[in-house]
C-alpha cells in the first residue's frame, strides 16, 4: 500500500523544468514536460551522479548537466548507447495537486 505525499501544484513546477525535494534522505527531482506531464526520479545520474534536476528537459527525457547523457523520465533508464538506470519515484496528479509516493521500506 502506497502513501501519497502532496508536494504542491503544477504551477509550482517550471514548464520544461524541474524542482527538487528530499524524500527519506534521497534527493528527488520532479519534472514537468512540454505536455504538462509530471515525472519524478531520484536526482542522480546513473553515470557520475549528476543532478538531473539541473538538466534540460525535452520531450519525456532530461539531459544530465554533467555529461549530457539522456535519461528517460518515464523509466529512469539512460537512453541511446549508454547503459544505466536511476530509480523512478511514483507520482500522480490529482486535480491540481501533485502526489508523490512515499518510499516503502523494503520489508526485510
Amino acid at each position, binding site marked *: 500500500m502506497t502513501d501519497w*505525499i502532496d*508536494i*504542491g501544484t503544477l504551477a*509550482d*513546477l*517550471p*514548464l*520544461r*523544468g524541474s*524542482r*527538487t*525535494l*528530499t*524524500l*527519506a534522505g534521497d534527493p528527488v527531482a*520532479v519534472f514537468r514536460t*512540454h*505536455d504538462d506531464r509530471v515525472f519524478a526520479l531520484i536526482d542522480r545520474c546513473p553515470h*557520475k*551522479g*549528476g*543532478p538531473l534536476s*539541473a*538538466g*534540460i*528537459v*525535452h*520531450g519525456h527525457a532530461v*539531459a544530465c*548537466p*554533467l555529461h*549530457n547523457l*539522456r535519461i528517460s523520465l518515464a523509466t529512469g533508464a539512460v537512453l541511446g548507447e549508454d547503459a544505466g538506470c536511476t530509480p523512478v519515484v511514483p507520482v500522480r496528479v490529482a486535480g491540481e495537486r501533485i502526489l*508523490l509516493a*512515499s518510499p516503502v521500506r523494503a520489508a526485510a
Partner: protein
Amino acid sequence: MEFFEATATHVDDGPVPAPASPDAREHLVVIGNGMAGCRAVEELLARDGTRFRVTIFGAEPHVNYNRIMLSPVLAGERTFQEIVINDSGWYAQHGIELVAGDPVVAIDRVARTVTARSGRVTGYDKLLIATGSDPFIIPVPGHDLPGVISFRDMADVDAMLAAAAGGGEAVVIGGGLLGLEAAHGLTLRGMKVTVLHLMPTLMERQLDEAAGWLLKSALEARGQTILTGADTAAILGDGKVEGVQLKDGRVLPAKLVVMAVGIRPSVKLAREAGLAVGRGIQVDDHMVTSDADVLAVGECVEHDGQCYGLVAPLWDMCRSLADGLVGRTNPYRGSVTSTKLKVAGLDVFSAGDFSGGEGCEDIVLRDAARGVYKRVVLKDDRIIGAVLFGDTGDGGWYFDLLKKGERVAAIRDVLIYGQAFASGGGLADPKAAVAALSDDAEICGCNGVSKGQVVASIAGGACSLDAVRSGCKASASCGSCTGIVETLLALTLGEEGVQAGPKTMCKCTSYGHDEVRRAIVEQGMRAIPEVMQRLHWSTPDGCSSCRPALNYYLLCALPGEYVDDQQSRFVNERLHANIQKDGTYSVVPRMWGGVTTPTELRAIADVVEKYNAPMVKVTGGQRLDIFGIRKEDLPAVWADLNAAGMVSGHAYAKALRTVKTCVGSEWCRFGTQDSTGLGIKLERGFWGSWMPHKFKMAVSGCPRNCAEATIKDFGVVCVDSGYELHVGGNGGIHVRATDLLVKVTTEEEAMHTAAAFVQLYREEARYLERTAPWIERVGLGHVKARVVEDEAGRDALAARFWHSQSFSQDDPWAERVAGADAGLHQPLLAAAE
C-alpha cells in the same frame, strides 16, 4: 529505322560495340530546357544512353532548374544555385549540346529542321516540344507598362527583387498559388503587398471556402492585404506603373504589379508548324503529336482532352514518352492530381473533387487552436476529394486511397484522424504508418518520387538523408517529406545503419545550423516553437542540443525583443554559476581587467568563510573562483558580492569571460600603452553580450605579450605606434595562435573594431563554435573583408553590437537577489519526510 534493329542486338554477349560516332546516331532535338524537357531526356538516358545525340534549346540563359522552387528564391530561402536540377556537368557528361538563351522560333516539318532566333538552323530526326506554358496577361489598359511582370522564370524573379530592393507598395493580381507565393516573397523582401483576387475565396480551384478563409486570415496576419471579389479595371501610370484601378473605382498605389492570374499552354510554335492543337498540343499515350517524328510533353500538351498545370503529371508523361522512344509500350493514362504545398509557410493540401453535390458526404475536423482544418469528401464509400489546411501529414495517404478507389467503410469513423489512428488506434507507431504505404505511394511531390524509388535508392547504397536527396532527389526540394524519408531510411537500414548527415543541427531537424539561422532571420521568426513548427522539427520541443542554439539565434536576431527561454539554457547559464562534479557550484565575480580592491577582496573572503566554501582559487583569467557553493545559497552569496559592488563574471556563460591584462605603461618599464586601462574599457563595454561560445580577450602592453593576447579570441598587443588587433586564438585542446586582423592607432579604433568583429562572430558563427574554428572555416580573408576593408559594413556591425548591448548589461545576479526565479534555487518542500 534499321538503326533501331541494330541497337536492339546490344543484349548479345560478345565484344562491346564501340560507341556510335555522333554523326551516326539519331538526333533528338528538344525545344525547352525546363523541367519537362530535361526530365524526358533523363528518362530516355536511363533507358538507353547511346541511341540519340541530344540537343536542347532553352529560351532562358540558364541550365535546367526547378521552376517550382522559384518561390523560395524570391523569398530568399534558396539561391538560384540551390534550385539547379542539372548543372553544366550533366550536359557534358551525356554529350548533350545546350543552346541556352536562343529560343527556337520556327519548325519546318518538311525539311525536319528548327530555326532559332539567332538564325541558326538545326536538323532533327526526332523533335520534342516542351515549351511549357505562358503566363496569361489580362488585357486591361496599362498591362504593358514597365513594372508589370509575370511570375514564370528567373528573369521575373530578378525583376521582382530589383523592384523590392527599394521597398514600397506592390499589387499582386491573382490569389492562386503563384500569386500568393509572389506576395509572400515580396512581403519578406520588405514590400507592402496587396493581393487582388477576382473570386470570393483564395485558391478556389485547390481549396474549399473554409480553407480559403483560413488561408486569407493567416496571410493577413502576416501583414498582407487581401482583397477578394476584386476586379481589375486598369493599370495606371505614365511611362511606368503607379497604381491599379479596380472596377469599383478604388485605386491602389503600386510601383510593381505582378500578374499571376493563370497560365496557358505555350502552343504558338506547334500551331505555326501545322501540328494538331486544341487547348494544348494534342498527343497520344506515348506523347507523340499528329506528326510521328514530333513529340510533346509537359504543360504545353493536351492529352485525352486534359491539360495539366502541375508538376506531378510530368513524371508519368516522361516515363511513357521515354518508353515509347525506345520501342516499349507504356501508355500514359492521364493523371489524378493532388496539390501539396506551402503557401507563406502554411501547409495546404488538396486532391480530387471537393465541390460536394449529390450523394457526397463530408467528414470535417477543425482544431482552431492548432489552426487545422481537414475535410474528406466521400461518395459511394470511396474518397473522392480531400482538403487539408495546417496539418497535411496525411495528404499522401488520402490521395493514395483516392487514386486506388479503396472502400473506406471499415475505417470511416476514424478516417479523419489520419492513417496512424485509422490503422491501429491513437498510439499507433508512425513508423508503421510509413511502412504500410504502398510502393507506388508518392513520397516527394516536388520531384515525383515514389516510396519504391526511395527504398530502391537506399537499397542501392544511399545510407543518409543527403545521399537519398542527391540520389533519387526525394526531399531535395521543399523538404516537407524529410520525416518520411528518414523513417524509410530507418526502416530499410535499421536505426544503426543510417548515416547522419554531416551538417544537421541535431536529430530533431534535417537542417544545418546555417540553414536554420538563415530561415530565422529571413522569415522573421520570433520564438522557438515557431521555428520548430515552420522548419518541421521532428520532436515536440527539441533537445538539449537544438534548444540552446535556437535560443541564442533568436536572442541575437531580436535584441531587446526576444524573451530569453531559461529552460533552453544549460544549467550554468540558468543558475549563473558553474556546476561542479559534486553538484555544487562555483562563483566568479567580475574583476574588471584583473584589477581588484581591498573591499572586493574582503567581501570575497567573507563569503568564503560565511558559506564554508572549501576552496578559493585564482583563475587563469585573473580573478577569484569560490568553490563548493550550494544551489540554495547562490542568491545569498550574490547579495553579499553585489553589496561590495561586484557583478557576475559570466565565468559560466557563452559570453565574454575575462579581459586579461598586463600592467602596461602605467608601471612597466617596457609598456608602450595603458594596457590595463584598455582592458577595463573592453570588459566594461563587452560584458553581458551573449555569443555562440565563450569569448576571451586580453591586452598586452608590449610585444613581450605577458597577457598572452595571442591565444585569445580577441587580443590586443600594444606597440609604440598603436594597437595590433589579433583574432581567433585558442589555448584549448588545439592550441591556435591568433591571426593579425589589423593595426590601429587609437583606443577608440580598437574598441570600434572589436565591436564589429564580435558582432560578425555573433551573427555568423554556429552555436558552440569558438572563434578559432569559425575563422578556419570562413577564412581570415572573409573576416578582414567585413571588419577591416568595408568601412560602412564595419560601422553597421558595430552599431548593431552596441544596440544589442543596450539590452544585455543587467547583472543577472542582482535580478536573482531581487527575487527573480526564486523557485530555481529553493526545494519544492523543505522536508517531506
